[in-house]
């Protein structure tokens, strides 16, 4: 059973020592969760799944009860699992089905201005890039790396936009056939 990206991350965070569920959420948010902080529910459900798989164990339960009072520790199987997860390369995202591509083709088929669509998209992309760049300038190294990751992806999209814009004529011919 898959424990997912969040599961592996939380597991990895436990490697430095046993933590409460609340601590785990805070550590995750601080390091990885800039865009989307975790819900407590997510932490709770993920931890119970990890428990079930024997990757973590409850180290201690503080008085007062409740899931958040549990202190989790990683098991040897858990460490092995983190090892395996980190060593397995991520499958590159192929992006073969793009909404944008569909929009462009549709515009060409219906005689709408495809260049406008591309330009608008480009402007939107750049707007995002500006925000990311701005954040990057104010943030620390971790911020910069995260933003760069996003920026590079956006840049790749932009390159595709440029290339498509340059080939609109040919695309139109191909679509019309």
């Amino acid at each position, binding site marked *: 059973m898959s424990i997912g990206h969040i599961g592996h991350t939380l597991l990895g965070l436990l490697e430095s020592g046993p933590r409460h569920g609340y601590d785990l959420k805070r550590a995750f948010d601080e390091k990885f969760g800039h865009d989307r902080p975790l819900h407590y529910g997510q932490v709770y459900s993920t931890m119970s799944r990890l428990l079930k798989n024997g990757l973590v164990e409850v180290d201690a339960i503080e008085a007062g009860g409740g899931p958040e009072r549990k202190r989790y520790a990683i098991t040897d199987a858990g460490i092995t699992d983190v090892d395996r997860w980190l060593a397995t390369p991520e499958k590159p995202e192929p992006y073969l089905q793009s909404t944008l591509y569909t929009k462009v083709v549709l515009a060409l088929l219906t005689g709408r201005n495809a260049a*406008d669509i591309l330009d608008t998209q480009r402007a939107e*992309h750049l707007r995002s*890039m500006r925000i990311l760049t701005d954040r990057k300038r104010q943030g620390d190294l971790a911020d910069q790396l995260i933003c760069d990751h996003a920026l590079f992806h956006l840049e790749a999209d*932009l390159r595709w936009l*440029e290339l498509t814009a340059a080939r609109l004529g040919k695309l139109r011919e191909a679509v019309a056939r």
Partner: protein
Amino acid sequence: MTPPPGSLLAAQDLHKAYGATKALDGAEFSIHPGEVVAVMGPSGSGKSTLLHCLAGIVVPDSGSITYDGRELATMSDAQRSALRRNEFGFVFQFGQLVPELTCVENVALPLRLSGTSRKEAERAALTWMERLEVEDVAGQRPGEVSGGQGQRVAVARALVTRPRVIFADEPTGALDSLNGERVMELFTDAARSTNAAVVLVTHEARVAAYSDREIVVRDGKSRDMERAL
């Protein structure tokens, strides 16, 4: 046609042909003080020609360019040179530093051209070099410093006259992304601090992201994306 209200530098309906090639075919442009505007577009689209026209380096075949209420077309070559000397600054991709002069002398050069004494010019130059974190190469020649340092020296030179408009043509084109971004950061920070307008010609989206808005040039025609949205 009149320039948009409040603009510092504006161009309308610019046409410029090199032989049979139309480099500009009705391009428009405007920029406000303190604004950073990216000029984007594929290579050969006319970006650089637009920049050269705006800076008064190249005279367009037709169209109007107004800077601070003055029409560039009616100025003499000497007047435009003086404008470039006193009100504009320039950063290019490479090969812009005089190889014989030391870095600080290069930075001081525009001030010296406007008649500032050598001592004073070099003092001001050093201040800007500190801001761009290249004061340690002040005594070295351009050939002895790294590409990133050289570009920052060039930026310092563009800023030293406290110009109101800075023209940058692919300022990071010859740098890797880390050095390029550092240059862009220091550059835009310094430009904003002096409320200078920056015309930034680039084909790299990540460099354009340092701008406030962008203009796309395609086949000699410009498109202001802000207004398009």
